[in-house]
């Protein structure tokens, strides 16, 4: 298993060496923040709702489970809510279309700046397969935590934060607290 992962990551690392395109530096964070704030404001002005990300994956996975095991999905109080009552297609979901837009927007921006590259972002002290393992575990915790908190960094911290929602601010403080609390133990991975 690990040799397979090593082989796969090795292929990606080789390709990375071949690409000699100069990528542009990232933009000024305050300018980006202002732009992101205007996008969020537009969502509120036009739709009366904020941005999100994790909800789209809840929809996808619920539809996936329904396709494989319809009875199981129907009997689960959590998944059945995302499938709906059958009168509308659950894939006609606002957040899902928004996240497809995020995918497109990220690719457009990355392409224009020469930053689209097949590679693995990792610290200098760990191997690629270790990094991928950590990415999977961290993603798992995030998926679980986001469901418990009724939203992730986009839906709670950013969108709820701008509306001065108490639960969102408490959530945001705890995200930073959790990150800083874990940072010492994971320093080998990043620095």
């Amino acid at each position, binding site marked *: 298993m690990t040799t397979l992962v090593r082989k796969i990551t090795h292929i990606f690392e080789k390709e990375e060496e071949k690409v000699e395109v100069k990528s542009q*530096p*990232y*933009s000024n964070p305050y300018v*980006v*923040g202002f*732009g992101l*704030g*205007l*996008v969020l*404001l537009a969502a*509120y*002005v*036009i*739709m*009366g*709702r904020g*941005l999100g*990300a*994790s909800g789209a*994956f809840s929809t996808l996975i619920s539809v996936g*489970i329904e396709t494989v095991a319809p009875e199981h999905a129907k009997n*689960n*109080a959590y998944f059945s809510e995302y499938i709906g009552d059958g009168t509308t297609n659950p894939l006609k979901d606002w957040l899902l*279309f*928004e996240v497809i*837009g*995020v*995918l*497109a*927007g990220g690719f457009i921006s990355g392409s224009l700046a020469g930053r*689209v590259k097949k*590679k*693995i*972002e*990792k*610290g200098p002290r760990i191997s690629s397969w270790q990094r991928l393992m*950590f*990415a999977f*575990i*961290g*993603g*798992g*915790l*995030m*998926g679980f*935590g986001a469901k*418990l*908190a009724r939203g*992730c960094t*986009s839906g709670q911290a950013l969108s709820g934060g*701008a509306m*001065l929602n*108490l*639960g*969102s601010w*408490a959530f945001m403080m*705890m995200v930073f607290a959790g990150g800083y609390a*874990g*940072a010492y133990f994971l320093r080998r*991975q990043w620095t």
Partner: protein
Amino acid sequence: MNSPFFKFGFFNFDMSLVVAFIIGIGFGFALERGGFGNARILAAQFYFSNMRVLKVMFTAIVTAMLGIYYLSVIGFMDLSLVYVGETYILPQVVGGLILGFGFIIGGYCPGTSVVSFATGRLDGFTFLAGVVAGIFVFGEMFPLLESFYYSTNLGKLTLPEFFNLPYGLVVFFVVLMALGAFAAAEWAEKKFADKNPENSL
């Protein structure tokens, strides 16, 4: 003209999906420009060497917050029609902590991992697979978690209501807090400049 436009029936549901896609493009574009498709930059936040996450997030929150505040003050935006999630304080605090741990272990959050994947990063894709797995586990465990999930409900509650302060004053405090955080972030970045992954890109 009254906002939010969708709630006043300016366009139908199918059109709202087109709006979702366009707004999503703006969202993804901004995240990528900000360096959020790169796990090393996101994680550096927690080592004080690169404070982009704080700067971008706080600037965005302040921008949107001021916009919402002034648009509601002049009567353009009807805040009663804007969606605000209810506060379930304990699950949100515990969920936030788990998310924070997930952030430092995995290096992304759900939205930024989409951008990372869109720009070719294999770790972003693996992270996304983890998110899907985590949601699956949560859903399967839901009967066990249900009572906790619905506990400590405080209803729709905003900071001005909670602290019993005028809306405008809380907005002002948040702006002050953001400015203080920016000053601290600039100071930290200078102090840990040698460890900033962005300087070695």
